[in-house]
């Protein structure tokens, strides 16, 4: 297992390096040089002053030197200071938001997994039943529903018409004056709509996958053997089939992290949740390059980490993988 783990981590080093190279290329693709643009606004800046600025930012050096310097700073997690008026370090601005976004994402993953697997099992064991057909419909609609629109609809229904749930933020204004249980309910009630909306698409996807995976497993010989030796159908499905069918679903769970992280952009914007996604949109509007670069590097690294965790969990649930590795795809 340890060898497998080390090999898996080694494979991801070039990927991480690639993420950094690609991010740097994007930064350089942008028209206009950072810093110099600000200076352009000041018409009185002389050519010499501009040159000083270019030297200050290292823009007069060859591109590989610039990349080397940038890389060295990024490795030490120094992404520079935000261009926004507060001028805080980009990393600090993001660090305080990561727990919110990741917390929501993990919560969504848990909900998706614990709801999608039973739904998938029910559709597969009742293939072509009314339930299975309505699930198929749900899957197609789930794929096609923009999550920001679903969020608006639920806000109109539960926030405006019924007035049951709050529509934005993570806590109410009077949070501090509430007693403990009221505080718990306050946070939970703020989370219900965002988590529901964010889980919707993934739920459709994963339940479909679970259904397909189980349908494939029940055609295998060992299932026929289990039935032939007279095991009750419940034992055949839940003790033999589901355990095997769930393996590919577990891996895909980890691969859903990039999608969920991206989805946070909409969810956090619509529901005014102060997470990474909201910061991303704000930084994109103000073209805050240090923060954008930090966000994309951190976001991609988190996805990479999700994939590694998925691979490790795959190795844990399926002994065959540990032995042979995944290179033989």
């Amino acid at each position: 297992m340890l060898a497998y783990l080390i090999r898996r981590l080694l494979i991801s080093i070039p990927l991480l390096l690639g993420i950094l190279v690609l991010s740097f290329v994007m930064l350089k693709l942008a028209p206009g040089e950072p810093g110099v643009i600000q200076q352009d606004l000041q018409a009185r800046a002389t050519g010499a002053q501009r040159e000083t600025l270019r030297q200050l930012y290292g823009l007069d050096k060859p591109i590989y030197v610039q990349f080397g310097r940038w890389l060295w700073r990024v490795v030490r997690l120094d992404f520079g200071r935000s261009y926004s008026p507060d001028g805080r370090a980009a990393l600090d601005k993001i660090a305080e938001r990561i727990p919110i976004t990741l917390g929501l994402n993990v919560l969504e993953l848990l909900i998706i997994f614990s709801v999608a697997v039973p739904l998938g099992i029910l559709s597969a064991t009742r293939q072509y039943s009314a339930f299975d057909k309505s699930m198929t419909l749900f899957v197609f609609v789930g794929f096609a529903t923009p999550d920001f629109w679903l969020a608006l609809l639920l806000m109109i229904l539960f926030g405006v018409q019924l007035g049951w749930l709050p529509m934005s933020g993570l806590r109410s204004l009077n949070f501090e004056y509430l007693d403990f249980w009221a505080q718990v309910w306050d946070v939970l009630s703020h989370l219900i709509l965002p988590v529901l909306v964010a889980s919707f698409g993934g739920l459709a996807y994963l339940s479909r996958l679970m259904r397909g995976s189980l349908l494939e497993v029940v055609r295998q010989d060992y299932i026929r053997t289990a039935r032939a030796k007279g095991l009750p159908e419940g034992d055949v499905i839940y003790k033999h089939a589901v355990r095997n069918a769930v393996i590919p679903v577990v891996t895909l769970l980890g691969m859903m992290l990039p999608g969920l992280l991206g989805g946070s952009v909409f969810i956090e914007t619509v529901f005014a949740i102060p997470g990474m996604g909201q910061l991303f949109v704000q930084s994109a509007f103000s073209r805050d390059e240090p923060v954008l670069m930090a966000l994309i590097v951190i976001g991609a690294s988190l996805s990479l980490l999700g994939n590694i965790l998925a691979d490790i969990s795959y190795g844990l649930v399926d002994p065959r993988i540990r032995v042979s590795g995944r290179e033989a795809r």
Partner: protein
Amino acid sequence: MARPALRRSVFWRQFRKNQLAVCGGAVVLVMTLAALFASALAPYDPGAYDVTQILMPPGLAHWLGTDQIGRDVLSRMLYGARISMAVGFVSVGIAVGVGTLIGTVAAYYGGRVDEVLMRFVDLMLNFPRLFLLLTLIALLRPSIWVIMAVIGLTGWMGLARLVRGEILSLKEREFVLSARALGARDPRIMFHHILPNALVPVLVSATLGVAGAILAESGLSFLGLGVQPPTPSWGNILIEGKANIEIAWWLSVFPGLAILVTVLAYNLLGEGLRDALDPRLRQ
């Protein structure tokens, strides 16, 4: 492969059996026509505001209501359909071009080339796509061309993998070997003999890709980083919907419904095409 007419009729018979796919195709056709003839169909000028008709609920004069400066929502949605369709087609065109090229080259040359290109695909897939889109658009400034380009350039990876797999299985077949034995060169073998046979999965994937691109555009416009007002797009009408969520439900409901129906239609059409065109799935 021998008799195209026969193959086509088999395809039609298979496709027609799938009622959902036929419905999807019909909706796609209607939406495309609506987009093409938006200027003739729209009851009002999409940019004309009328301060006496602000935030009118759906009624006889304005079927889908009006927005906060009194513009007709139906007219704006018809023009918005143009944006959605144009972004859908052009960006998928870019994605198909890039994906097919990279997949073909990787599969055909194999070895180191394949290794490098496929690692690049892995790399691109590791970025949350929306983060990539937002960063590129923020750095390049939003315009409809930038949006088409970045949606296309961040959406080709699945296609590249698909084409590569398809070609790997094709390139050892007898008809390719015989073409090579007859002295055909690499590009001719690739574009004349192999690619046409890999077209079916590409077509299916492209149809599904249009759905994804329409979703991506509407999402970007909803965030305010897509098609810029006053040009109407389904996504940016929804921004107004959010701003007036407590008083004007129609601004939120109808554009989203249009996105949902269109995306659903393309998905159903794509799935139907896959079932009808792929003989392996047929009994």
